[in-house]
């Protein structure tokens, strides 16, 4: 009998509304139980420490082909930047760590679930091979739909049911988790070296607008009742003055409400919204429009966002937004990798240095923090760095420090070369808000888990849920005066318990409990039309056969299927 009790910690569990009460948490056979159900448990003393559920990351590029291109083509990302081996396997890389380092580092921060942000469906076997080699953390992966030819054709003709049947088929074929949309239409246009710069810019040949792709996918998602909502990377990302396009994208969700059995309330998740919240008409006049964006988000309950915080590191940008990476290449003139994927998507990879000496970078830094600090509902605003685009994921503790401490923000801002111009272009200097541990728990566990539709398993400490607990050496009644201690505590958790097994102790990995692949299995009515379309496209246009495209069962590592019945 595997029993544990976490005693006397200050517990923060937003799913149950527990705000730092001193409580005991019972664990039996990998699940939370009432402490009264325990016989003779092993005791973990959490007195004077903060106890939260295991962290949940809603958006991070950790496994798959473009991540691996980032690893492959940047040997310099390893040189003098990799720690010496401490655990079972070597841990190589900085901005794009190896799979082993990824798993270990997430565990050290107290995270247990990471949602891979973009899976090109054709490459799904690759994604699942890397998931197998990413230890400890559970993974899900979102296939990209926003430039998929099937999707474009169905939605152009308003065939939501057909699109839903295709979506269900693709989620099964790739063991995918949710509908990811990256620069809808624009990435298909990139097949010809073009782009869709606004949501009303029609896609070449397919003659459908990005706006219609997004609304069609929202309808598809709610028709199926998937756990997660449409997960959108907006058009015109990363450019000065794009906040109006972002507001246009946000408005597409108006009038839709969530229909699902997973407790999810939003119909649209906008990811790394920091990159979408810019004013000005050129890099010279570049400024923050975080307040305008968050005013809209705060007023609309059917939207969630993650921030995509710039961490001021040298990093590697990678996105399915092919045209964006091409324009970034023009901006910094560094090496550029690109892969267009037949019928589905594209991806680009370019190294990038976010320097405190560059005005645009420090404004971007401020924008991300403003978004989180202007948030009225931390259950709808999540911490991310769009790893590795705005910075590596292991900087989350630093982001938390900035959000929890005005002093930490001021210390960082003092290093800026263009401090005054950064302050002029943003409102960061006028914000005194410091987030609480409860709000951090909302932004890093409870909120993302709810938005992903997995809050019955992850993100909380409710009896019956998976026993994932992170314990941090922070006493909420006696918070350290030095903000650096906050970063340290969140970087190296005192304990991580994953599925009832102590995986990390004092910031070191001590065990590697089995990890899972989480995917969504949707049942839909038989659809002969869609079956015929799939047959035709694979016969004529794909370069692999459909029977080899669908992931073989043997290549899915330790699967956990979330079942959805959409036959009614």
């Amino acid at each position: 009998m595997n029993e544990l009790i976490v005693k006397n910690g200050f517990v923060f569990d937003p799913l149950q509304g527990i705000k730092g009460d001193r409580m005991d948490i019972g664990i039996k056979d990998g699940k939370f139980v009432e402490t009264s159900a325990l016989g003779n448990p092993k005791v973990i003393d959490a007195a004077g420490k903060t106890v939260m559920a295991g962290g949940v990351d809603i958006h991070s590029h950790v496994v798959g082909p473009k991540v691996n291109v980032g690893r492959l083509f940047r040997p310099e990302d390893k040189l003098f930047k990799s720690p010496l081996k401490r655990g079972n396997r070597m841990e190589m890389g900085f901005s794009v760590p190896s799979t082993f380092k990824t798993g270990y580092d997430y565990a050290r921060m107290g995270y247990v679930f990471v949602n891979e942000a973009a899976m090109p469906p054709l490459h799904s076997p690759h994604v699942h091979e890397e998931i197998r080699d990413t230890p400890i953390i559970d993974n899900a992966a979102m296939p990209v739909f926003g430039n998929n030819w099937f999707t474009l054709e169905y939605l152009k003709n308003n065939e939501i049911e057909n699109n839903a049947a295709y979506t269900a088929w693709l989620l099964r074929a790739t063991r995918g988790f949710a509908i990811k949309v990256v620069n809808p239409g624009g990435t298909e246009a990139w097949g010809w070296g073009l782009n869709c710069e606004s949501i009303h810019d029609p896609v070449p040949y397919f003659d459908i607008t990005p706006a219609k792709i997004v609304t069609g996918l929202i309808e598809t998602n709610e028709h199926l009742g998937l756990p997660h909502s449409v997960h959108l990377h907006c058009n015109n990302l990363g450019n000065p003055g794009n906040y109006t396009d972002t507001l246009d994208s946000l408005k597409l969700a108006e009038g839709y409400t969530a229909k699902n059995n997973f407790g999810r309330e939003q119909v649209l998740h906008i990811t790394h919204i920091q990159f979408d919240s810019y004013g000005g008409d050129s890099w010279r006049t570049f400024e923050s429009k975080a307040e305008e964006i968050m005013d809209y988000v705060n007023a609309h309950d059917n939207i969630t966002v993650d921030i995509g915080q710039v961490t001021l590191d040298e990093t590697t940008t990678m996105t399915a937004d092919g045209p964006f990476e091409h324009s970034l290449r023009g901006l910094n003139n560094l090496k550029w990798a690109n892969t267009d994927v037949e019928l589905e998507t594209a991806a680009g990879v370019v190294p990038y240095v976010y320097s405190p000496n560059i005005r645009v970078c420090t404004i971007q830094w401020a924008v991300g923090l403003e978004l989180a600090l202007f948030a009225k509902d931390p259950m709808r605003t999540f911490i991310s760095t769009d790893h590795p685009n705005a910075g590596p994921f292991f900087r989350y503790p630093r982001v938390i420090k900035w959000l929890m401490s005005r002093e930490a923000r001021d210390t960082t801002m003092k290093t800026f070369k263009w401090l005054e111009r950064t302050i002029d272009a943003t409102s960061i200097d006028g914000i005194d808000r410091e987030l609480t541990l409860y709000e951090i728990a909302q932004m890093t566990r409870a909120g993302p888990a709810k938005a992903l539709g997995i809050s019955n398993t992850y993100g909380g400490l409710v009896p019956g849920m998976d026993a994932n607990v992170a314990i941090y050496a922070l006493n909420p009644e006696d918070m350290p005066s030095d903000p650096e201690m906050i970063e340290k505590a969140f970087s190296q958790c005192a304990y991580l318990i994953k599925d009832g097994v102590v995986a990390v102790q004092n910031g070191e990995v001590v065990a590697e409990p089995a990890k899972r692949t989480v995917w969504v299995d949707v049942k839909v009515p038989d659809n002969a039309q869609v079956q015929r379309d799939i047959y035709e496209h694979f016969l004529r246009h794909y370069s692999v056969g459909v029977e080899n495209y669908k992931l073989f069962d043997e290549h899915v590592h330790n699967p956990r299927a979330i079942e959805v019945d959409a036959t009614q």
Partner: protein
Amino acid sequence: MVKKIENVGCPFCGVCCDDLVVTVSDDGKKILEVENACVIGSTVFHRAMSERHTLPRLRQPDGTYKEISYDEAIDYAARVLHNAKKPLIYGFGSTNCEGMAAAAKVAEKAGAVIDNCASICHGSSFLAIFDNGYPSCTLGEVKNRADVIVYWGANPAHAHPRHMSRYSIFPRGFFTGKGHTGRKIVVIDPRHTDTAQMADIHLQVKQGHDYDLFNAFRTVARGHDIPAEVAGVKREDIIEVVDIMKKARFGTIFYGMGLCHSDGRNHNVDIAISLTRDLNDFTKWTIMAMRGHYNITGPGVVWSWQYGFPYCLDLTKRDIAHMNPGETSSVDLAMREEVDAFFNVGTDAAAHFPIEPVKRLRKHPWITVDPHPNMATEISDLHIPVGIVGVEVPGIVYRMDNVPVQYRNVIDPPEGVPSDEELFERIYERLCELEAEDAAKAPAKAVPEGIRAGE
């Protein structure tokens, strides 16, 4: 009743055809017919049943081979790795990714150098990619969109027999309904190859002067003047081809060993990538290496996610991986006599390496892991036969465009013969046992405390 197995992947070249139909006998033991494959591909299947060994063979003092059990062979292999100061594990062009991942685990445990055939093939492409990136696409994109195809220093008519019909010149794709009549084909090669025979334009570049010609292309593309003749090609011809390239809707440069192994090497590939970058200011262009074996792309992919480097990985420091081709590449290590044990896995180093490094490697234990006898097995100390990937063992392989393809098996391996993955997992276990025995015998070695590198 014979059984027809469809959607079979072909374990020969980097084209990774996955449309083979293989007929096997009633008892599932014999391959009777292979449809859709080229002649080389079909030979791989037919050859599966001949020249096979079902037990490992150990070299005897009199020079002959004697069959031993797999347990004995695994023990021998583990001991060789355990006792060597700097073993080299090389090959992997012809096995699956599962085997590569397991071999890397062994290499990390043993403190070995692990390298793949790119080391003597497209390794120079990696060097260029490190410097300049890689604007590429999947082969289906070429089929559906490309109206201009350039083969530069490549001869797919012989090396990748179905490349032109499946992906590049002939197929009718979504936006390319006219097939080859809607495409312009340019072949740049010093020889008039059978591929050049297919071309609309063949530029006969002077051997070893590819870099000059690329330079001329870039100069013309940017609107500058060039001399009357560059690299043996006339100015008008260069201007004509550059004009075709700039007016393409979607173009792809396929390049082969003619670039990465003639004078200039990685610099040739580097400037090819620069040309592709330049052309993207006008229209859409992509570039792709014509990778040779069906899964030689695999080790670059697998070891990148495991260690961050595609080839020439020095894991001998045991706590950090290091890559520096020239220093940690197989042939150079062999020439400097730095390695004291050699594993040849899923390739034939005896046939592919220059003779000098082979001689020097041969001074130390040499173990070959391969389904068939080849030149390497004939000079090995130990030959461990394994199942043939794509014929007897399923698994994931990576096509030349980095697309993963799931391979099947059509027959079972001979009884008792493991896959590469099983073999390396068993060597790993034995290696762990040997380490534990050592640790029990001797006082514990002082292991330096792990420290975090300064960030």
